[in-house]
């Protein structure tokens, strides 16, 4: 099982969403849209269950 928090969920629904800041660099997460697409493909291939806690 994988839990999507709000920032990941927004990017999953719209990869052009402004990415969150990386706490390590204080800059926007690098290539966030491409990374989220890769994550979705990987989770999809592995047939993982996605948990979305509510309220987000």
């Amino acid at each position, binding site marked *: 099982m994988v839990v999507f928090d709000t920032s990941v969920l927004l990017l999953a629904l719209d990869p052009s*969403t402004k990415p969150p800041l990386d706490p390590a660099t204080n800059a926007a997460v690098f290539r966030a849209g491409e990374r989220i697409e890769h994550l979705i493909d990987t989770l999809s291939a592995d047939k993982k269950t996605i948990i979305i806690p509510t309220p987000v």
Partner: protein
Amino acid sequence: MTKTYTLHIDAYSPETIPMARLAEYMQSMATMLGHENGVHFDGLKEGSTQLVGRIDHEQVPKVGAGLDALTRGEGQPDAVKAQEAINRLLANDNASGYLYEDNDQGAKIIAFPGVTRPRPVQYGPIRQEGTLDGILVSVGGADRTAHIRLQHGDMKYSNIDTDRDTARRLGKYLFEPVRVFGIGSWLREDDGTSTLKRFKVDSFEALKADDLRDVLEELRRVEGSEWAMQGDALAVLRSLRDEGNGPH
């Protein structure tokens, strides 16, 4: 030079301890010390019951290291189980105990709280509306209440009841993913986990086994979302939360 470790059992005496009970303590103590070929029974001493184990010279460092690891909470699984077993034996004997080195009873290497250890705390049952997801693996029951079972990965949910009409409709989805709605009774264990005691199903829905990619593509095509128009959607979301007087 050999070394001894003594298990002080605050119960019985060498004359009164049942042989079978003594054997259980000996077995657990031997497992806890490990290195069985180098650990020997060295007798019983007076003063409640004191079970003495003698360690061969060559094995002294290894046994000592194993006990050190145990006190740090990093012991070998067998040793940890044996330590717990000694605690259980002592608790059942309404006693506590400790392990000490050589003849120094003041140097308690390991304390066994036994009967004084905190008892597990369990809360509940707590009744709460909710849902359970899983593959429907069983529907049955000869009485008016039907019983179903769900499997979700390694987790199996039993103690799920419903009425016959719902069970009949559910039966069409045997070995398929479903979500059941109803009221559950949960026990909260002392380690923070929840155990399902009973779940009464009011309704259900069949879950689709759609591919995540396909689902997201479908959601992305839904019109009317304004998130894409926000310059900083996360900031907007945060401000919405703050308007609600802080975190949810």
